């Protein structure tokens, strides 16, 4: 488990997961901040199929 405190954030500066507006990702990149853009989508897209597929993880498949 990661140990994060507010003072750690202020001392080391932000390293960001951006979830949403792409512009913010671009702005952070232009400030040379480590940033990853998450390709977020609304939940419940084809949820039944998705959960079936996710069950295939962790083996049981040949």
């Amino acid at each position, binding site marked *: 488990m990661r140990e994060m405190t507010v003072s750690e954030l202020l001392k080391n500066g932000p390293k*960001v997961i951006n979830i*949403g507006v*792409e512009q913010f990702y671009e702005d952070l990149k232009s400030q040379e901040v480590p940033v990853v853009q998450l*390709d977020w989508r609304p939940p419940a897209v084809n949820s039944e199929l998705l959960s079936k597929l996710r069950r295939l993880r962790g083996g049981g498949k040949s």
Partner: protein
Amino acid sequence: MLLQRIHVEKGAYYDSVTLMLVARELQSMEGIEEASLNMATEANLKILAAAGFGVSDIQAGQSDLLIAVRGDGSVLEAAIERARELLKNPPGRKSTPGEYRPKSLDGALSMLPEANMALISIAGRYAGDEADKCLDAGLHVMLYSDNVPIEKEISLKNKAKEKGLLVMGPDCGTAVIRGVGLGFANACPTGPVGLVAAAGTGLQEVHVQLARRGVGVLHAIGTGGRDVKEEVGGITFSMGSEALLCDEEIRVVVLIGKPPAPSVEERILRILEGGKKPAAVGFIGGKASGDKPPLYLCRELEETAAVAAALANGKDPSSAREELFKSYERLKEKAAPMKRKGFIRGLYSGGTLCYEAQLIATGLIGSVYSNAPLASEMKLADSLKSRGHTMVDYGEDEFTQGRLHPMMDSTFRAERLLSESQDPDVGVILFDCVLGYGCHPNPAGQMAEAVEKARKKAGGRIAYVAYVCGVDADPQGATEQRKILEEAGVTVCDSNAEAARLACYIVG
């Protein structure tokens, strides 16, 4: 004859800003009357139906994209094609098209294991749950999204507090951490000042006003406007203040926001009183004022910045404040040759700037109508129809549903400037241009174009007064933006408070 078409793009999700930017591109096409791109949620289908689009036979769900166009029959097909093309490489995106993007938080963390915060700007109904997941993963959260229920805010902040994590927001538009601007933020220098602010343009204005005085800011922690409500209890305000008081690099602490609930105000002030650092407290329009070291109580944004700058420079804060208010007095001389008859109409993109302007004007020339008024009896029945002195906040939800925030696009506000200029009862039109990351590349250009058009019709009958909230290092460049406005005949002031006063003196 005008024709219409709705194209369904299955399983295509884009953020709302991207969709609106693409829609704006389509609207500029020859022969296109109207264009919109929306995810096919029930609410959006209703909006399309209200706009006259036939939606009854649309087969689409909330994960599908609708491209709706109306115009010349011969260009509809081309417009839809153009939209699909633009979505592949959206306007404003500089990164490689098709770049690999992780789809889950765990995936993102495997790519950036040292990540320490999440910036969340998805639709409010999903944002709270995502924030929850991020806290579970041990990340600080900045919640740019609005429309997150207050119960969710409370539970998020309590959870975060237990883990020692910060939740900035919801509805936190701006933050600065170690000089890095997050969301809408100005490229100001870093320095010995640390801010905690409700959010938005109040924070930006103090940030910029400090920069004007040569004082830098290392951190500016946003809290969201509801943090200081009784129910939330100022959790982020308290955590932020404590962190800044402990931070060895911070010499002066500044708080900015609307006046908190009394119990919350007491809690926050007690934290500051216990600290060993001077603190400028700008609760805008608050009742408390005066200096009780280490606390310096202020009521306006520029005043807060002037006091904080004096504290940072080891000068006397009281005389800095006095000097500032003396300089405001001198605006009367500046206004003398500009005298006009009539009402003030203020058109704002920044919520706190609009609020502060109302406060100042109410003190000088009497009550001001608004869609976001100081007192409920001054609320406009119709936000699009001004009466008496009026100041409109274009960042309010009613204007941003399905539209870009006015800081990203001033088209709608510029149209209002034109129509207000035709009102014979108007003497001054007052507006802001907010610069920085995330903002429109040329807000002054958008407004100046409208001013020039309006002057052709209204001549010199109306005075135009503006404030450019930004610095030269901002992507738009403050000096450049000022020049664009001044060349259009706009009087540009050095602060929001100054612009509001000048407008009052012109008609007062």
